[in-house]
């Protein structure tokens, strides 16, 4: 089977990923619920993962896909730790609104 990119074009993937990435950024800025912010970060990572795969196909090279595995591992680890932090904050504050976290400032 031929290279898929011949029919789609790498730039389209780049655009898609850029927009997806930007949506992630937007989510981070837009929401104050820690979990949603967190999800937005996952969106960002996914956008990059997708781009990795696209580039992998572009170069006809497996390394890009291998890297996605690592990236997934990282995402999983981050989620584990991040949610643990979220939970402990929720236990202490009863809220996960990041805008309530303003004790440290100045």
């Amino acid at each position: 089977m031929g290279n898929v990119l011949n029919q789609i074009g790498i730039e389209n993937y780049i655009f898609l990923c850029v927009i997806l990435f930007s949506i992630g950024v937007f989510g981070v800025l837009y929401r104050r619920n820690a979990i949603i912010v967190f999800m937005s970060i996952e969106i960002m990572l996914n956008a990059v993962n997708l781009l990795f795969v696209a580039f992998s196909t572009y170069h006809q090279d497996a390394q890009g896909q291998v890297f996605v595995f690592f990236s997934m591992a990282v995402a999983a680890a981050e989620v584990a730790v991040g949610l643990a932090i979220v939970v402990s904050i929720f236990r202490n504050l009863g809220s996960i609104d990041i805008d309530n976290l303003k004790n440290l400032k100045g």
Partner: protein
Amino acid sequence: MNTLLAITGIGVLCLLFEIANLRKAIVPFTVVALLGTLGITLSDYGTVHSHYNNMIVTNNFSVSFSALFIVLTIFLVALSGDFYRKTEAKISDFVSIKIFLLAGAVAMVSFGNLSMFFLGIEVLSISLYILAASQRLNIRSNEAGMKYFLMGSFASGIILFGICLIYGAMGTFDIQEISELTGSAELPEWFFIGIVLLTIGMLFKIAAVPFHFWAPDVYEGSPTLTTAVMSTLTKVVAMAAFYKLLTGMNANISYEYEMVIMVVSIASMTVGNIMALRQTNAKRMLAFSGISHAGFMLMTLLNITSSAGTLLYYASAYALAGIAAFAVILYVCRDKENEDIYNFNGLGKTRPVLAAVLTAALLSMAGIPIFAGFFAKFALFSQTIKAGYLVMVIAAVINSIISVGYYFKLILAMYTKDSTEEATKVPVVFYAVGVLSILINIAIGLYPSFVINLIK
């Protein structure tokens, strides 16, 4: 490679010690084992090895920096025993996380492949997220962890994007190959975008303006020992990795890029120093001071081909002074609610040695001879002048002047104010760490060539 193996081995052993109920032995064992590792690391000095398909490449750069990281970790681990005395049940976790953090740090300076770099930086970051939030009942610690985590992941995303674009341009993650490919004429623009995104991610890690906002809050909220890790080890690790990335990938630094570095560097110095002036919390103050030092260290990038030695020197000077300072801060704020400067009142009378150590550390950071910080600054200045950035040097000079202002605030508190409380007994480890790190600082201050020449 051996270093990395040894370090992970130590980490795993720490966890096993817990199972074997040998908690008391963890810290001494780790220190000794790390000293051994230091030996292993140094034995690689002078050689260039690449391991496992170029995943790990050891050279003088990586060996020297790894050695520095190990030394710092030894100090930090040594201080753990006292710091975690109230939560002794978890000490193996804390220590092993620090050890793994070190593994990540070593990976970040000895990577030969961007995947190692990425994993290294993630190990480092995740360890720090954990350590920052580790006082789970302390709302400030929670907040610090959360802030660091959210912003750190955000930065990770950007770094990942950068790596992805580099891959897109080059089709490989291997530093060596990338470096060769950069010479070719048809270099896709993606590569530069990738480099820029990577740069931004690293700027975040070293807490350079305008990506610095997390640093003071996180430093303040984190448990003090974690702050010590962040302000000494993490900062120099990130800077070294940043440097290695740029040199390793042979990124042709354009004039505009240098301009960005210059602006960020000056902004970091200025913002860091000015903001530090009015801080009342010692940790927060050191956070801002760290931001300004990041600005200083960024100056090495302006003369990237020959400034590795200077960077190592500056990093060592800064980190050792930081360790010494934190040893004292840890003692002073042992049972305190906060780390406000008034806690230091009268330390000069009650604990003259510790006060002297802190004074020396601050003087080193301020850049006063005979301390290493002075020579570091000087080397930096002369190198930057050589590269033709007089403006940078003048900005740096003015910033050094401002910085004296807040360093002296602490010194004044120690020597001119009266202590409000009885002095408690000082565990010997604080003396040992403080005095030793300051002595090393002075020693490399007197013989800077020893350190500078490590990387030529």
